[in-house]
């Protein structure tokens, strides 16, 4: 019982959640017309053939004539055996397309996430330690700026200034440079910067508010009366309890940005990552890629929430999992 049992059940629930989402996406897919089938019909009509016949042939070719339950079972088995279908536009399996794209997404996502997780709480703590001083106002102003300005717009402006006007950064993302190279660092600096400014605001604000609450707490006075240094008080006695509510914001917000904003940022900076893969698939109506990418984001979100719940237990010993 206890923590181990809690984790087991939490993971099992994560599977149930993905299963429900997989079913819903499949339902939407089954209900929507297949663009390639209608395309085949149009083509046949233009070439003087029988559109109904061509449509039938196209459906057969894609296994769409099978009964619904059969198609559902095939699809779900496919999802869990990592057979996510074939991309028409890219001529490769969807899983392969996702893995290829993930390679580029990870390159900027890891530095961005690490920076936000490290800097966000610290900037908030700094702000609340200097509450209502000019330092606090400067940090808060910076946070609100990043929070308010749309990521894609900020990205375009930065590209215009540093890429086009000043020529410091390449305007077109170069996939040929090695991952660990200065050239790669330079071309990833802007997307990372845009995403950090966009997300650090929310994290920093929550960190500031939560830690201001603990700055005046009795246990901080106790620590001071024990002779603990101010720096250690901030790091140990204030930051630690602050991280409990903050971890929710961090995970939630990072996921939101990972799924939402990174898509726009990838399109703006022309990074061939997951976001751009999804964007192009939507434009080209490549349904299996759209579904595959959606599924991938779903899994990431589910795992993220799972991690967040587990982080709770480590951070706040008062949370008891025995009877949940």
């Amino acid at each position, binding site marked *: 019982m206890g923590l181990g049992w809690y984790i087991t059940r939490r993971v099992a629930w994560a599977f149930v959640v993905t299963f429900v989402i997989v079913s819903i996406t499949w339902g939407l897919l089954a209900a929507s017309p297949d663009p390639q089938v209608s395309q085949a019909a149009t083509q046949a009509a233009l070439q003087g053939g029988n559109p109904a016949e061509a449509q039938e042939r196209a459906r057969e070719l894609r296994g769409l004539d099978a009964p619904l339950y059969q198609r559902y079972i095939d699809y779900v088995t496919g999802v869990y055996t990592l057979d996510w279908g074939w991309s028409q536009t890219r001529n490769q399996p969807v899983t392969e397309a996702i893995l290829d794209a993930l390679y580029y997404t990870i390159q900027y996502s890891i530095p961005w996430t690490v920076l936000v997780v490290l800097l966000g709480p610290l900037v908030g703590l700094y702000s609340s330690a200097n509450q209502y001083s000019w330092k606090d106002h400067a940090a808060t102003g910076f946070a609100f700026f990043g929070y308010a300005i749309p990521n894609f717009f900020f990205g375009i402006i930065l590209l215009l200034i540093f890429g086009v006007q000043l020529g410091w950064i390449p305007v077109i993302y170069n996939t040929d440079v090695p991952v660990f190279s200065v050239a790669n660092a330079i071309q990833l600096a802007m997307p990372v910067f845009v995403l950090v400014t966009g997300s650090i605001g929310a994290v920093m604000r929550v960190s500031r508010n939560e830690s201001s609450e603990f700055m005046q707490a009795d246990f901080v*006075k*106790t620590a001071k009366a024990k*002779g603990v240094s101010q720096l250690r008080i901030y790091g140990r006695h204030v930051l630690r309890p602050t991280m409990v509510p903050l971890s929710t914001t961090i995970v939630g917000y990072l996921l939101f940005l990972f799924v939402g904003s990174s898509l726009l940022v990838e399109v703006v900076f022309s990074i061939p990552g997951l976001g751009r893969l999804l964007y192009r698939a939507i434009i080209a109506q490549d349904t299996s890629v759209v579904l595959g990418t959606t599924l991938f984001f779903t899994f990431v979100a589910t795992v993220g929430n799972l991690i967040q719940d587990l982080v709770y237990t480590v951070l*706040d010993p008062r949370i008891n999992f025995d009877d949940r």
Partner: protein
Amino acid sequence: MSTEPGTPLLSVENLTTTFDTDAGELVAVDGIDFEVQEGQTVCIVGESGSGKTVASESITQLVPSPPGSIDGTVRFEGREVSAMSESELREIRGSAVSHVFQNPQDALNHCYTVGWQIVEAIQVHEDVSKAAARERAVDLLDRVGIANAATRFDDYPHEFSGGQKQRVMIAMALVTNPDLLIADEPTTALDVTVQAQILSLLDDLQEEYGMGIVFVTHDLGVVAQIADYVVVMYAGKVMERGDVYEVFEEPAHPYTRALMDCLPGGERAAGGIGGTLPDPTDPPDGCRFAPRCEYAVEECSRGTQPEEARLSDSHSVSCVYYHGGRDASVITGGADAEEGRRPGSPGGTADD
């Protein structure tokens, strides 16, 4: 210690603590003096808001600054604490001068085990191994009456009751063997049985370790139990001070007498003292207690708080009735009246 004989353990002179608030400058402690001798227990008494907590936290400058600012001279073992740098202050906080606070519920950090927090108190000041610090912590937890101290060491604060938490706080305060313990209403948040246990624990520990204690309380019953010396505070000023026997047997200030009457069995046991504390941002002229004092005369509301009049070597009072040939027996009453108003002594004592 290199202190000369006769130097008090702690001497506080003209201690003034003000807070910068939106409503103006708030004077919480307005120039108080007192001394604590080695092994002595000094009680600072007064009702809520009289500035006693702020006074106790001003000694080692725990008051957050800004908005607070502390003035006056505090000497500890002859060294001037009030002139110390932040790092010098850190050195004496928790090692030579320890604190126990009013509300044990929040006084411990809920994210760390009790043992971790006691070990921190040791290791901040002494270069000892974790194992050695642990041993000392367990030993002291045991000493303050935590059963199974060795296993409770690894428990979190929320797994302790209020009384146990206060015991942990006391253990944490004493683990560095301080010379002075500042206890700010350490029993107020606890129920009466636990309160009695904590008080007798403090008493035992004081006998064992020989530290001086500054004990802040509003409860005269507690004062009677533990104090050697009493300082009565009202609205940031000292009203009366004296040996515990002097203050209890011959309370000289109307405020002290009013507080005594509030004890169970006293005249005001149910009613309390009429009126409220003056506005600390705009204190009245003259004696701070004058607006609520039933003996107040015109002179009470003029000038500043009256000079303390000496009644004996240790006993003094700040009241106009003890100056300029006024008849103080109006306050203390005649010999007969005195017997009549003392709680629990309706008709004279065996000494008569």
